[in-house]
Structures are given as structure tokens and as C-alpha cells.
């Protein structure tokens, strides 16, 4: 119990960010027209690729002899990059179609 309270109090700043972000996320997309649901889902998909930062931290700190961390970290960075790059490029491709049409 004490452990848990310590964990909460030492992460208080993070918890505030968490709570506010939850409401922000809801607000930000509240008025999205259904036309944009697919690109929005795809864009959000790319943004959660931010998990790659964690992979980079793990990978960067792995000791030269810790092969498990090195191998898994390497794999994690590749997977995270796929999520980020693939996500943003796919979203851009979808949105390009919308833009092209606007000019006409």
C-alpha cells in the first residue's frame, strides 16, 4: 500500500498529464466528420508509434554483451519505425487524394 502511494506521488506530474490528455484526446476529435474517420485512425496509429522512443532508449543503453537486449531492442526499433513511417506515409497517401480533388 505504501509502495503504491509512493509510486503515485512520485509520478504525480505524469498522472496529471495522463488525466488531461485523456480529455484532450476526446475533445480534439469530437467534431471529426465521418469522411475523415479512416485517415484519422491511420494518423492516430502513426502517432502511437511514439513507443519507438522507448525502444531507442532500451537499445541505446544495452551493454555490448547483453545480446538479448541488443537483439530484442534492434527488433523493437525496426517494428517501431515501421509503425511510425508506414503510418504517416499511408495517412499522407489517403489525404493526398482529398487535396487533389479540392483543386478542381
Amino acid at each position: 500500500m505504501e509502495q503504491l502511494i509512493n509510486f503515485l506521488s512520485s509520478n504525480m506530474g505524469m498522472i496529471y498529464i495522463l488525466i488531461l490528455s485523456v480529455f484532450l484526446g476526446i475533445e480534439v476529435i469530437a467534431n471529426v466528420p465521418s469522411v475523415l474517420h479512416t485517415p484519422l485512425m491511420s494518423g492516430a496509429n502513426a502517432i502511437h508509434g511514439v513507443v519507438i522512443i522507448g525502444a531507442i532508449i532500451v537499445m541505446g543503453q544495452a551493454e555490448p554483451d547483453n545480446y538479448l537486449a541488443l537483439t530484442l531492442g534492434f527488433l523493437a526499433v525496426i517494428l517501431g519505425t515501421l509503425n511510425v513511417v508506414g503510418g504517416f506515409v499511408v495517412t499522407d497517401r489517403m489525404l493526398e487524394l482529398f487535396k487533389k480533388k479540392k483543386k478542381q
Partner: protein
Amino acid sequence: MENQILQIIYLIGSLTFIIGLKRLSHPDTARRGNLIAAFGMTIAIAGTIFLYRNDSGESFSSTNIILIFVALLIGTILGVLGAKKVKMTAMPQMVSLFNGMGGACAAIISVIEYQHHFAPGQYGYMGTVLAGLLIGSISFSGSMIAFGKLNGNINDKTIPGQSIINLLLLAVLIGTGAYLTTMQEPSMLLLGILTAGCLLYGIFFVMPIGGADMPVVISLLNSFTGVAAALGGFIYHNQVMLTGGILVGSAGTILTILMCKAMNRSLLNVIIGSFGGGASGTAAIGNSAMGTIKEISVTDAAVLLSYSKKVMIVPGYGLAVAQAQHACHELENLLEEKGVEVKYAIHPVAGRMPGHMNVLLAEADVPYPKLMEMEDANNEFNSTDAVIVIGANDVVNPAAKKNPQSPIYGMPILEVEYAQNVIVMKRGMAAGYAGIENELFYEPKTRMLFGDAKATLQKLITEVKAN
């Protein structure tokens, strides 16, 4: 100093994610919004590589930095190739695939953290690590199954008592995770078992879910991965991971709920997964009792359309599969030249993702004002001479209004039966993706036009030209 700069970079990164998402929700600013978020991601990644310092102030070793860049390069090449090559019709499974990659990434981070920074007694920290593993691996295997299903590699399967097994398995997994949190010694064996169990749960979770529920599942798994990323933010005290992850987690959940609402189903119902199993059972109802179907020839269809005042096109997944969006637009242009008013009625869950039809028709240069949302379209069917249903089925099934036994009962539909004439283009008499018989096809005013959507549309175009 470096760490302070990195914090500022993370702040900018978080800001770009918020602005990016905000702009993504408006058609005029969407593309710019995506680029802004991508920019924020790039500086956050570059900043982490060069400016990250651990507690004793050390940066990454140069060997590790090189390895990171190699991995980034491999991921970028594969990601760009995959994203550029994929057809617009295969977009949903691609999103699902990329989502799975993010989930796997989060799960791997947790495994390494567990092995590397095992902290007995630090329940909050250990719980966060294990929750990241749990959610990340469920998201990974679930997304892979969703990918396989949308790609047509995997069929719906339900084992008896699936929902009970799922709930039990989930309870066991959470129990194991909680036990691991309280252990004094690290156990890689138990961690491995937990991971395997989570992967299995992800498979069980998506396996029985079929038909109309697939978009909901992808959206849900998307928000799962967001939460997994946010847990990573907790592990590393990393604000950009936290904001990015939670934004997607909450926005994804809202999107999921919006989709459930469009289908008049509760999220719990989707999660427990009773739809896929129940649908096949009810499919058999009243096949013979519905009467006979009537076909129409391409020539007759062309005449009917050419002499209509107002035509409404209802596109569905069949249009996407046949890549018929361009042919469809051509037909629309031809009819407009003849003075026919042509509009598209878009059901919110037509296709395999919300907005899927809009993306496809945008690709074929169909102008925005021609795309009508469901409520507006339903007000206009009364005054419509002819409706062409192209490869759509469940979204025009009147059983959703009339038959309380139907699994889709209560789902809002496009009420095409109020139009003067209905032409249904279909490949054959197979039931829709949800596996339900459609009595619309047996209505007196309905005529069937069998064949591949694209080929049939092209024939129709030739005939309309000749008229």
C-alpha cells in the same frame, strides 16, 4: 544541459501531436496536420538518439547509435515500400498491420525492462512494465489476426463457449501479471508463459469477431497500442510517449464508441464477441419464404438510369474489392451529362472501415458535395427514381428495422426501399459479410444485376453511351 534541451524537444513533440490530431479532424487542414505530427515525431526520435543521458549522465555508445540507425533505416525502407505499394482498397489491413508492429514494439520494451531492471517490491513500476507487456502483445496478435481476416487469409472461427473461455483466459493473465509484480526474484519462464498467453488471448479475441465489427476491432486495437505506448512513457518518465500514447488511447476509444453507435451495438457486446457466432445461426431464416429474385439486363438497366431524374449510388465493400470506383465515377459523369442528378449515399460503416468509401471515391475524383451522409440520404430516397447498390449488402438490409431476431437489428441503414427502383449489383446470391440474408433482394421493385462490379459498370457505361 542535453537533457533539458531534450525535454523541450519532447514538449514541442507533444504539442505537434495535439495540433496534428486536431488538424486531422478537418478536411482542409488534415494533410498539414499529418505532416506536423510527423515532424514532431522526427525531432523526438533524433533528439532521443543524440541528447538522451542516463542517470549518470552518459550518452548512448557509438556502436549502439550505429545499430539504432541501421534499424531505423530497415524500418523506414520497409515502411515506405509497404505504405506506397498498398492499394487504397487494402488500406484497413495495412493500418492493422502497422498497429500490430507498434504493439509488438511496446511488448518487447517491457520484456527487456523486466529482464534488465527487475525491481522487487516496486509494485507500481513492475505493474506498469507487465501491463505494457500484456496490452502490447494482445494488440500485436489481435492486429495480425485482423490483418489476416481483412486480407482473406483467415476465416471467422468460434469454439463453443468462446466468450467464457476468453473471460477466463483474461482473468488468468491478469492474475499471472499481478503475481509476477509481487515476486521477489525475476522469472523469465513465467514471463514467457504470460507473453504466450497474451498472444493467444489476442488471437481468441479477434478470431470469432466477423463482419460488420471488424472496423470497431481495428479502432479498439489502435487505442490499445496507444495505452501500451503511454505505459512506456511511465516506465521511462517520458512525457512525449505519455501524451502521444494517451491521446491516441482516448481518441481511439471515442472513435470506437462512435463506430459502435453507428451500428447500434454496445462495445461490451463486440468485446465478448457474440456477433460472429450468432450470425451464422440466423442466416438460415426464411430463405425460401422471401419469394423470388428478379434479374435485370445491362441494357434495361442503362435505359432505366438514363431516363431517371435522380439516381443515388450506394457503394459498399464490393466496389472496393472490384476496384470499381473509377468506373463508378465515369458512369456518374455520363449520367450527369444526360441531365440526371447523381449522388452517392454513404453509410458510415460501409466497407471495412468508417470513411472507407469516402477515401475510395475521393481517389476517383468524385466531388465532395456528391457524397451524402446517411441521414441526408435517407431523406432523399423518397424522391429518387433509381438506386444502384454496388457491392453493399448489410447496410441496406431492411431486416435491421423489421426483424428483431436479426443480428443487425437496430443498426441504422440506408432506406433504399423507398426509392422507385432499386438495382443491386452483386457477384452472386451469397450473403453479406455479416452472413445475413437480405430481403431487399426479394422486394418487387428490386432488380438484380449479377457480375463483377467493375466489369458490369463498364458494360453499363457502354450501354448508357449508346442510349
